[in-house]
């Protein structure tokens, strides 16, 4: 419908010869910025609940655009590398480490995309016989980045007494624990 020019109610003085189609409303889904829980800030100690490193206590470095959290063990302490982790599978503790001095600006979702991984050529023989777990190929770039981040992260961790031992220990529930009543 053509918008009426002039006073409403009266038919407009001028309208084009052919009907002009009004643009249809776009049904494209608008992506909002990923919501991060208020309790998760850079430097929070997180408890991973699922995945390869379940039970590990880990330091949160920053939230990424996809909504995942960038996290590091530090690797020297508990073997968790710089990694992405979903908020849903994490308990955020109230313990914080001061990570202001750690530079994590180069890490984003593209850094972790599978396209960047070194390709493992798998021949036909291997396809049929080989199912033994092969050692993961970690690129030198990742190793260097891990070292760089952990150098400053370890200093921040050492500043808090007993934090190193805390991050090295794994979390588990025992018989008399009531997780709905525990404060983390």
């Amino acid at each position, binding site marked *: 419908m053509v918008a009426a020019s002039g006073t409403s109610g009266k038919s407009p003085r001028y309208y084009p010869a052919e009907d002009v189609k009004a643009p249809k409303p776009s049904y494209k889904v608008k992506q909002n910025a990923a919501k991060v829980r208020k309790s998760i800030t850079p430097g929070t100690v997180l408890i991973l609940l699922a995945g390869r490193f379940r039970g590990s206590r880990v330091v949160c470095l920053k939230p990424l655009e996809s909504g995942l959290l960038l996290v590091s063990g530090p690797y020297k302490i508990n073997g968790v590398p710089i990694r992405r982790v979903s908020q849903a599978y994490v308990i955020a*503790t*109230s*313990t914080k480490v001061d990570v202001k001095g750690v530079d994590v600006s180069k890490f984003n979702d593209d850094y972790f995309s599978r396209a960047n991984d070194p390709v493992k050529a798998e021949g036909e023989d291997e396809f049929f016989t080989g199912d033994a777990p092969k050692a993961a190929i970690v690129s030198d770039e990742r190793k260097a980045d891990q070292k760089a981040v952990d150098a400053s992260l370890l200093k921040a961790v050492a500043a808090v007494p007993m934090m190193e*031992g805390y991050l090295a220990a794994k*979390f588990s529930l025992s018989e008399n624990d009531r997780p709905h*009543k525990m*404060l983390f």
Partner: protein
Amino acid sequence: MPFTRYAEVGRIVLVNYGPESGKIATIVDIVDQNKCLIDGPESGVARQVIPFSRIALTDLTVKIQRNARAKTLKAAWAEAETTTKWEATSWAKKLSMKKKRATLTDFDRFKVMVAKKQKSAIIAKKMEELSA
């Protein structure tokens, strides 16, 4: 073994149930077989009729007359040093320990675990010395 903890005027009680649970008060008057009037001006318990099922008698008493005013009650408490005496009992200490444990964070629980290990290591070492 006769009874010693009587529900009498002046008996210090611990409120177990309700918005003021965990606080101590004094029995100021007995209403009937099931209810009494308590008051705890020092501990923040309002003067109220409360059933005996909601309170627990303690060993402490204060010397007051039936239906004493809050002002008289406060003075009697201060004279008997009720609050300090109560907090020195193992009952009160256990209650406060439970409260403290409920507020521990995951990091605190880790520190407690390490401290317990250190303590038992010291004890074990001493036991070895003694048994040798």
